[in-house]
């Protein structure tokens, strides 16, 4: 356990002692700023009954940030260690693959959460100046963050898996971006109803991140989605551990 904490701390610190973490956070702030100004402009034109969190979610910058940041965060986790050779020192230290993967995933997830904190600031600011108690409930804010962590967790675990499979950070980022996008676009078809059969539409809506997130931002935490995303994360992490372990006998 102590080894896990040491690895986790190094992983998290790794984002902040190098430029990577700050650059990612700056990029996220940039997009959030866009959505914030857009939101304020539209609020100036006409009033709305929709919760502030949902307004933010509806700006589509949300998915841009989700889909772009996860591959960039996880691409370094194993690919960088492998290409710089430090993986050899790590693998010959008495730590298990399980500890390594969990520490790296946890580090990425915590960073991902920190990266999304400015959203809370934007939301609270809007709430403060709109003077409308219905505009933001704590439940909606909690739901938003639960959704962000769960869906982000899936994207990050996809990123960990692709990072384990290659030595190149770029390859890892591109492959995990494509995988995350595919998963996302599949669910998008349910929203835009592209003339599929009833059954297809039904199936797609089960995995539609857009629809699930829509519920989360309204403060509805549906256990079905929670279970779905947790299972996906556990499965992907398990795969990552197995791929990493395979080096010892392959």
């Amino acid at each position: 356990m102590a080894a896990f904490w040491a690895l986790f701390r190094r992983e998290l610190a790794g984002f902040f002692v190098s430029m990577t973490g700050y650059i990612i956070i700056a990029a996220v702030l940039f997009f959030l700023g866009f959505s914030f100004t857009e939101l304020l402009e539209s609020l100036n034109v006409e009033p709305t009954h929709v919760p502030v969190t949902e307004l933010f979610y509806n700006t589509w910058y949300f998915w841009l940030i989700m889909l772009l940041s996860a591959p960039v965060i996880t691409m370094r986790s194993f690919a960088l260690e492998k290409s710089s050779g430090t993986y050899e020192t790590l693998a010959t230290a008495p730590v298990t693959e399980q500890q390594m993967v969990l520490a790296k995933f946890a580090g990425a997830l915590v960073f991902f959460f920190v990266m999304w904190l400015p959203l809370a600031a934007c939301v609270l600011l809007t709430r403060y100046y709109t003077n409308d108690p219905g505009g933001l409930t704590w439940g909606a804010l909690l739901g938003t963050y639960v959704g962000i962590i769960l869906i982000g967790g899936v994207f990050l675990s996809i990123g960990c898996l692709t990072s384990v499979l290659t030595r190149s950070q770029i390859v890892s980022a591109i492959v995990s971006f494509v995988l995350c996008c595919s998963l996302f676009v599949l669910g998008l078809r349910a929203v835009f109803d592209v003339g599929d059969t009833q059954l297809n539409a039904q199936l797609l809506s089960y995995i539609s991140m857009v629809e699930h997130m829509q519920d989360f931002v309204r403060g509805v935490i549906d256990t079905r989605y929670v279970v779905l995303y947790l299972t996906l994360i556990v499965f992907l992490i398990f795969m990552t551990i197995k791929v990493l372990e395979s080096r010892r006998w392959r």
Partner: protein
Amino acid sequence: MNDGSMIRVDKLTKEYGGNLALDAVSFDVGKGEIVGLLGPNGAGKTTTLRILSCYLPATSGYASVAGHDVFSASEKVRKCIGYMPENNPLYPEMRVREYLQFRAKIKGLRGQNCDHRVNTVMEECGVADVHRKLIGHLSKGYRQRVGLADALVHEPDLIILDEPTQGLDPNQIRSVRELIKELGKAHTVLLSTHILSEVEMTCNRVLILHKGRILAADTPENLQAVMSDSSQVIAEIKAPLGRLRLELEDLPGVGYVDITASDGDYFRCSITPVGGADLREEVYRLARSEGWDLRELRRCRHSLEDIFIHITRRNGEEEE
């Protein structure tokens, strides 16, 4: 199993996609030895060390460290080795003390003991004065010391160093060698190198590895003794050429004489004995009795370099 031997390697074989990197290599390393793995590039040194440090699995064969199988008891093995890989990879964005503390923690050191060990190895390896510096800003010599400190921090029974002096300048090489010698007093050390003088200076035993096979395993002195069978005597003598050759060839135990002109009126004679005899006294007596001037007389000790070239070349010829 644990009978005073630290490493046991038995018929270890490693194949990389059809290429044989190690071909049934067997050797033992006893406790407290400093053993050098010597060989040209691509001989299989790094592969051997990686298998012993549990980084790579062997294709077949058996290897154990301190009685633990490297394949089935990998974690136990990793606990008792300190391994410094080739090129000594480190995290450039970390500070020296921070890095060593991180390494100590993942190697299972706790609390005060952890701090104490980190301080001790920083002193031992001479990095205490740069403990706040970023590793990325350190010179190569210092980085190498940080790597060594990392290998030592958990007081391992066995230290495995892959090319520890690679890329260092002569002064740094000397200080790293001193450090390794120092380590050898308390630990078992297995190091690899392609620099022959390094093994000669630091190791008690040499394993010569070539094309995945062990060609010789002995102390540097013994290897030299093996070669001294044919060790030549070099003499520079001022004498009439014809008579010099005649007299030298008449000496008992002389196999072959080669004479070349040297500066002045001197001739340089390389005298090869038969059966390992030392001909220096004979040559001296001859020169004295003939009244010739003698200005140099020495017996060639074969350096490891010669032995290495001799052994690897002989092996190459056999294959052809």
